[in-house]
């Protein structure tokens, strides 16, 4: 049996108005080669200028990953020939990555695990290439888009852990608002390193690398497929060659891309056209202030402080916007549990059904509070509150107005209800007798009152009055 050792390199495109080193637009665009500047094309004489926004976002991620951030930003050139890289080199960071020696906490099957981050560095994306039978097409829209690469230590031991890390990392990016991290648009991509070693052995085995896996689901499958391949080789007494492999989705296996002997020497050297950019302590502090409480810490808080369940805490924090909404509710004084119930229940099912983000719905935390208050004051029943909520979301009208328009008015008046109860008790003397024999007849009387009042009687009050009056008989 073998221990599996996995390391990940995750590439993620950062959001910004312009590209990392040019003024061309950074954004997804269907029309090829429309967001391109001479700089992206690597025309003779071009020079890079660094996008400050991208630097800021990279620093933000580095900080969120608990990395050491150097006092200056320097870039290096990674040299290789391929048409997706028109300059003939990629501007990246090797000498001094923006984030070094960090960690992130993940949860796998209820266990907390610390994943070590080797580094995170800012670089530029390459162009897209599409290879046809006897020609290739190049789309430079993506060329030069700010790309953040985060490299973990080889410290994961299963595809489950790898996926948990990827999910956690993606959520961090989303919480920080630095990327949309959409795999379907190629914004987040992953290289996986895998090696196997005899169980409990100290010495790492020979690793293989799989490049550019474009979805988390495929990462899982690819890892499992490669583990199988290595296991088979090792248990047959074979040896693993250090090589780069490509995952083949169609046949669910990996193919050799290039062996160690063919490894490219990228001839890194410091980019001479970008003088070191100082990262002052003021600048770093300013960025630190912009980092929100991240998901992991929110879950801990919701469980420990707000006494919410695991499921509730997880659901509420899956998206930062929902978690922020929940916290806005708490700040308005809504009870933790009540807010959690409303949000994880009807509100999230509405979001899922309509496929809208929580920021776009009409029901603000203040309006939710209005609704909850009406229910707590006994003006509407909990069943009615659900109806009102639906109407509020659909008609985009405040709860008070919806209650008026629906003609829902709870009868909270003691005398009105008492009159009906006394009459009903008179009419159903037999049931009063049953009660005295120990039978439960409350539901019948409460139900009858609701029927007569078209559901407008306050159920709690009705039950109380029924009990008082029946006791008198």
């Amino acid at each position, binding site marked *: 049996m073998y221990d599996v050792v996995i390391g990940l390199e995750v590439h993620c495109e950062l959001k910004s108005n312009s590209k990392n080193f040019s003024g061309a637009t950074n954004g997804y665009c269907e029309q090829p080669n429309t967001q391109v500047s*001479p700089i992206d*094309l*690597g*025309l*003779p*004489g*071009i*020079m*890079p*200028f*660094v996008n400050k926004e991208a630097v800021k976002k990279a620093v933000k991620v580095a900080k969120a990953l608990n990395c050491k951030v150097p006092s200056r930003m320097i870039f290096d*050139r990674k*040299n290789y*020939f*391929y*048409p997706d890289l*028109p*300059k*003939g*080199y990629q501007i990246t960071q090797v000498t001094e990555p923006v984030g070094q020696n960090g960690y992130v906490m993940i949860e796998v099957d209820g266990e907390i695990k610390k994943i070590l981050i080797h580094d995170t560095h800012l670089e530029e994306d390459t162009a897209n290439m599409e290879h046809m039978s006897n020609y*290739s097409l190049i789309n430079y829209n993506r060329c030069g888009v700010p790309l953040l690469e985060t490299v973990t230590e080889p410290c994961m031991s299963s595809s489950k852990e790898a996926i948990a890390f990827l999910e956690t990392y993606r959520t961090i990016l989303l919480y920080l608002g630095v990327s949309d991290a959409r795999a379907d648009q190629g914004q987040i991509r992953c290289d996986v390193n895998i090696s196997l070693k005899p169980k409990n052995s100290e010495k790492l085995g020979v690793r293989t690398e799989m490049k550019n896996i474009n979805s988390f689901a495929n990462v899982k499958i690819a890892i499992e497929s490669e583990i199988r391949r290595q296991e088979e080789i090792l248990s047959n007494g074979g040896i693993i060659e250090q090589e780069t492999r490509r995952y083949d989705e169609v046949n669910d296996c990996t193919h050799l891309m290039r062996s160690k002997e063919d490894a490219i*020497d990228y*001839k890194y*050297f410091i980019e*001479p*056209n*970008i*003088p070191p950019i100082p990262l002052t302590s003021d600048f770093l502090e300013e960025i630190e202030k912009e980092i929100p409480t991240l998901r992991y810490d929110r879950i801990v808080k919701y469980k420990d402080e707000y006494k919410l369940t695991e499921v509730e805490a997880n659901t509420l924090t899956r998206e930062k916007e929902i978690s922020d909404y929940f916290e806005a509710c708490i700040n308005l004084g809504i009870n933790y549990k009540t807010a959690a119930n409303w949000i994880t229940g009807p509100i999230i099912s509405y979001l899922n059904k309509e496929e809208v983000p929580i920021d776009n719905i009409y029901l603000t935390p203040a309006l939710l509070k209005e609704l909850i208050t009406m229910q707590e004051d006994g003006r509407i029943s909990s069943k009615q509150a659900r109806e009102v909520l639906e109407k509020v979301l659909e008609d985009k009208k405040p709860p008070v107005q919806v209650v008026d328009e629906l003609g829902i008015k709870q009868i909270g008046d003691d005398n009105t209800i008492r009159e009906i109860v006394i009459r009903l008790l008179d009419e159903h003397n037999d049931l009063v007798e049953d009660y005295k024999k120990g039978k439960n007849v409350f539901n019948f009387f409460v139900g009858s009152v609701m029927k007569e009042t078209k559901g407008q009687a306050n159920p709690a009050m009705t039950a109380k009055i029924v009990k008082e009056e029946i006791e008198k008989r």
Partner: protein
Amino acid sequence: MEYMNKTIDEIRKALDSKEITSEELFVEAKEKALKYQSTYNSFVTILEDYQNEKINTTVLSGIPYALKDNFSTTGILTTASSNILKDYVPIYDATAYKKLKEAGAILVGKTVLDELAMGGTGTTGHTGVVRNPWDKNRLIGGSSAGSAASVALGIVPFALGSDTGDSIRKPAAFGGVVGFKPTYGRISRFGLFAFASSLDHVGCFTRSVKDAAYVTDILKGKDEHDMTSLNDDGKAYSETLNNDITGRKLFYIKEACNLELYKNSNDPELLETLNKFQETIAKAKEIGFEVEEVEFGKDLLEALYPTYMSISCAEATSNYANLTGIQFGVRGVGKSIEDIMFDARTKGFSELIKRRFILGSYILQRENQEKLFKNAGRIRRMIVNRMNELFKTYDGLLMPASGGIAPKFGETSDQLSDRYLILENHLVIGNFGGFPSITIPSGFVNEMPISVNITGRVMEDDVVLNMANKLEEALGYKGLVKEEQ
């Protein structure tokens, strides 16, 4: 009446007094360019039509000039004198070109260089060799060969060049004109085809120090496209040229200039050049300079050439990795993408260029980088530190720009003699440290011009120009032109 053989001041006066129009100047420059082209081959492209969108009040407005063919010019062929770019027409403007356009200067043509600016002879351009106006059988030097020749011939009063090792200042010396490269970053490099980014400078050729100041005043300043460009220092260099230089201290390098070293030399041109240099020193002292001989450090001086080659070839392999014929340039043929690029680069570059790329690639290889590339960087730092130490005492380094006159075509040089190792290579010190550095004519040897060079402290472009202007006045070679009889 001719104007193109005059200085900018004189031409300015003629324009302002309506004695001549800008268009007439262009025609004169163009006709001269065409007339000299078959003999001297200064130009890759001579523009057909006069174009001036912006007549204004700058000193350069309406004045024709030439541009080295490695500056990006929208819609105008820009070849860097290389076959791989022989049909390349840029789609954007270099900042220096744009600034001249905005100042109203009139482009006459694009000048020949050593292929990709990598060379010092002016003989490796894809359109043929550039000849020295003072002697057709001699080279003018490079890489900014055509720019130097066009100013020396009186085709234009000024031309732009680029200087990575000595590519402006050496051909200026061989052509008997002024060649100035200011402090690194003073003029934006955006749009200059990068050769070795940490050493590349934009600069100019003129026929007077004052004209070099005029051109630099227009070109300098921060450019958002070049992160290494300097903020404008707010000075007008052309206005402080006559400041008093009394007491300014200059030094020259003993290991290169001391006559004792060459006792056994059988190179009369070298000896005469060095004797003339002593005469220049005497004249400098007469007008108030203090000049001293300084021992620089022979080890450092002998390291100049290998250090330069290591850094420049390494950076060049990366900078010119964009020349694959895929995005632009001459497309190669082949079955795979790799084959197509391989073919384009095999056919597109001369042997010399390929040799330098191989050298650069070797120097950058993982196993060699520490020893070759990084050590070169360390030596560069030591040399710059030595200069800065001397600059605590001295305002400038005064040196003969070359150990002799322009060589004849095919003349072989003894690369390892002190003359070639130090006297022919010291100008690179200016590139290592980004120091402002200017070459001005200082006399003749065998009817060929010789020159001296002044290199000053970083940022003190004004001081260097001021000192050079005073020395130029004392030497009396301002406005030197070689016109065919």
